Structure formats: C-alpha cells, structure tokens
C-alpha cells in the first residue's frame, strides 16, 4: 500500500487524532471525580490547619481524617458579598461527609479577578463577590477562617487565615504557592514563617497587615518577611491586605452587632436597676 499518498495521509491523521481524542476524553471524564475529591480534600486540610493552629486539643496531622474532623468542627460555612451580606451557603457535610462544599483555589481566583475589576472603578461588582467564610467551633470558641489568593513571583500564592469572630486577632494562618523559588519564596509555606501570624492583629488603619522586610520588630500588625524573597513577601503583603479589605464590611457588621448587643444588655441592666430602685423608694413611701 502506498502510505505516502495525500489521501492516505489525510485519512490517517484524521483517524489518529479522533482515536486519541476519544481515549483522552474518556480518561479525563472517568478520572475527574477523583481529581476533584483530591482538590477538595487539600482545601479542607489547609482550612482546618489554619483553624486549629491555636488550639491545644485539636491538631491536623498526616493521618487525620480531615473530612470527618471538618464535619465535626464546622459550625457554618457561607459566602459573603463585598458589602458584608451573606450571599449563599456551603454544605457543611454534617449530614453526609461526601457533600462538604468548599471554595477551591480556582473559585478564589475568580474572586481575585473580580477584585481587579472593582479596583478599576466598577464598584457595582461588589455585589457579585462570593467570598467564602468558614466558622468553626474549636475549644468552644468561634473561629472564623478566611482565604486569600494573589499573584506571587512565579505563580499564584494563596492561604487561609483563622481569626476571632470579630476579625481582629489572628489565631493562625497557613500559606501555599504554586511555584515560588525553593529555599526562598517557597518558605512562606513552611512552619517558621506562618506560625509568626499567631496572636497578631489586623490594624484599624488603611493598611491592615504588613509583611515587613528587615523585621517587624515585635509590631502587632506585622510579621518578618522571608529573607531573600522580597517579591514573594511583598506579594503576600498585598494579597493579605486586599482580601482582608474586602472582608472588612462583613467583620464590621459582626462588630457592630456585637456592640449593639452589648449596649442592649447594658440598657437592660440599667432599666432593671432603675426599676429596682423605684421599688425601693416605693417601699419607703409605704413605710
């Protein structure tokens, strides 16, 4: 047979490509559930590690069944928009572990893209934001975990920050990256760096947090940058500040509600005190 004819060549290549495409499509679709499961598990592990960073009783190790632990510790998981309003729920998996929903890095990337558009001046998009919030009940304390995602030096960097309910004090943080320089920028994903975040606070000013080159010198709202990794450290600084800024309306709402509740409690205490004294005077009057 002449294998060099034009017709033969065209038919041959067409058939070959179709066969290969069919094989790959079949493989991709049959492996997809396993891959998604892995991505989800990875996210859950990171979220849990951040949430339990300051806990004495719970710790995430390699052998931990993260899905079960997540379902056990989670109190609620939901999305907020850029105005601080709750805009959707995530399944916490309390009924069935397999149903756990989390926002993976690709979801975070979409939010980060919306940030960029908002910064260009399109503030109507604030409503379109779906920022994930995970609230855990750990050692009978409410722990809120928020993610962050941004561009590093070579690729994306992302992380999860656990804060107290009012979004001020940081209880723990964990970061990860796609391809920062090993031994330098990659250190943001290592213990000595991210454990610095424990016990720090987000400041009230415009700049919420600093990853400082040359040392934070014990500042409450800053940590030491990774030496030799200036760009990665700066990128992390920008990433954290951007995300925390968009979460601010939500935490402001929580703080306001807490303040109002406290005021109401105070007012109640005052009225009951007043009533009590009135009763006393009443008693005296009768006397």
């Amino acid at each position, binding site marked *: 047979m002449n294998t060099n004819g034009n017709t033969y060549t065209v038919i041959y290549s067409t058939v070959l490509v179709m066969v290969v495409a069919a094989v790959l499509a079949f493989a991709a679709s049959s492996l997809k559930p396993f*891959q998604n499961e892995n991505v989800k598990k990875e996210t859950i592990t990171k979220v849990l590690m951040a949430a339990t960073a300051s806990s004495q009783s719970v710790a995430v190790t390699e052998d931990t069944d993260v899905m079960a632990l997540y379902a056990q510790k989670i109190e609620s998981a939901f999305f907020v928009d850029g105005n601080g309003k709750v805009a959707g729920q995530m399944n916490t998996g309390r009924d069935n572990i397999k149903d756990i929903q989390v926002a993976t890095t690709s979801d975070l990337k979409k939010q980060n893209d919306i940030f960029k558009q908002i910064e260009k001046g399109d503030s109507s998009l604030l409503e379109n934001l779906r920022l994930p919030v995970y609230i855990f009940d750990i050692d009978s304390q409410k722990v809120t975990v928020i993610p962050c995602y941004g561009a590093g030096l070579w690729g994306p960097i992302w992380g999860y920050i656990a804060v107290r309910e009012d979004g001020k004090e940081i209880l723990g943080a964990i970061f990860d990256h796609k391809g920062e320089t090993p031994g330098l920028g990659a250190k943001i994903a290592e213990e000595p760096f991210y454990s610095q975040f424990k016990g720090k606070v987000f400041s009230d000013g415009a700049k919420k947090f600093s990853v400082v080159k040359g040392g934070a010198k014990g500042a409450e709202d800053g940590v030491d940058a990774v030496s030799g990794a200036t760009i990665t450290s700066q990128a992390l600084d920008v990433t954290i500040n951007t995300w925390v800024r968009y979460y601010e309306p939500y935490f402001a709402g929580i703080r306001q509600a807490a303040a109002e509740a406290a005021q109401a409690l105070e007012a109640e205490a005052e009225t009951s005190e007043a009533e009590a004294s009135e009763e006393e005077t009443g008693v005296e009057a009768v006397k």
Partner: protein
Amino acid sequence: MKDNLKETLLQPIFKGNPITVLVLGICSSLAVTVQLKGAFVMALSVIIVTGLSSLIVSLMRNSIPNRIRIIVQLVVVAMMVILVDQVLKAFSYSVSKTLSVYIGLIITNCIVMGRIEAFALGNKPLPSLLDGLANGAGYGMILIIVAFFRELLGSGTLFGFRIIPQAVYDAGYMNNGLMILPPMALIILGCIIWIQRSIQKDLQEK
C-alpha cells in the same frame, strides 16, 4: 536474539545512558530532583511513557505516512503523557503537585522522541518496548542518584524521613541551601558524568 534483547535492555542503563552519555533530558533532571519522592515518581512516569509510546509507535510503524511521522509520534507521546498526568492527579495528588508542570513536559523530553525516531520506527514491538523501558530506567536511575544527594545534603532527609539527627544540627551543622537550587543538580550531574567517563575510557574525546 536473546543476547540482542539483553543488550537492548542494558545498553541505555550504563553504556549509553540517555542523561550522562547522550546528555538528553537535562531540564527535568534539574527541576524534579530536590526530593527523592518526586524523582522516583518522575522516573516511573518517564519509564511508562517511553516504554508504552515506543511500543505503540512500533506497532503502527508500517502504516505511518513518512511525511507526518514526527507529528504522529508527538500525538502518541502527548497522549501517554496526559494519561499519566491525569492518573497522578487522581491517585497521587501531593506528588503531582510537587512535580507540577514537569510531568506535562515529558512530552518535550528528547529521550522519548529520540528513542521512537531512532529505534521504535525500525524495530519490532518487543525490542521497542524494552528499549523504551530501558531508556526510561537509565534516565530514572540518574534522577534518583542526583535526588539522593540533593535531598540528603539539602534537607537532611530521604523520602521525607529525617536522616541527619538533631544532635548534628545542634553541633553547628547546617543544610546546604545551594543543594535545593537547580545549579547544584547540574554540578552533581557533572560529577556523575566525570565518574562514568573515568571508568569508561572509550567515552573520552581524544
């Protein structure tokens, strides 16, 4: 015949090693040898890809139109690589994450295309399969040797287990930070080539 097969199998591992003698596949051997685990999985992936794509191309060798043979080979290799990548992502996620793009880059690894073009196109399926597997193994062996030194001296671990005891660190020993950067892989590779050439004198240029 039997001797021939044995030769096909052993030649690429020592005498004609694709990395140290042909100096192919250097890029990935610099990138994925920071840790043994990654190097091990990479080696395994390359063995599977070279072996199976050589086998498939050899089975198709009489029907491939000569003018588009490189493209046909590329399609077969790409298919194998994507399959390996997908399987790793599904069943060995953490390793797939450390290897990141380098699994996909097996496609551009000259060893795979080189062996198909030089061997599989002109030989029967069984020798081609063995040739592919052996070349992958030769590549993998060097990868693992380099990774052994880099992980041991750069992180003090092997397969993630601590080998150098804490007491040594307390006495002032420090991990060699240069080891985990790619240039050191090139230097180790150079040392391996040096050793091989001093043993096999016929490799030395006059």
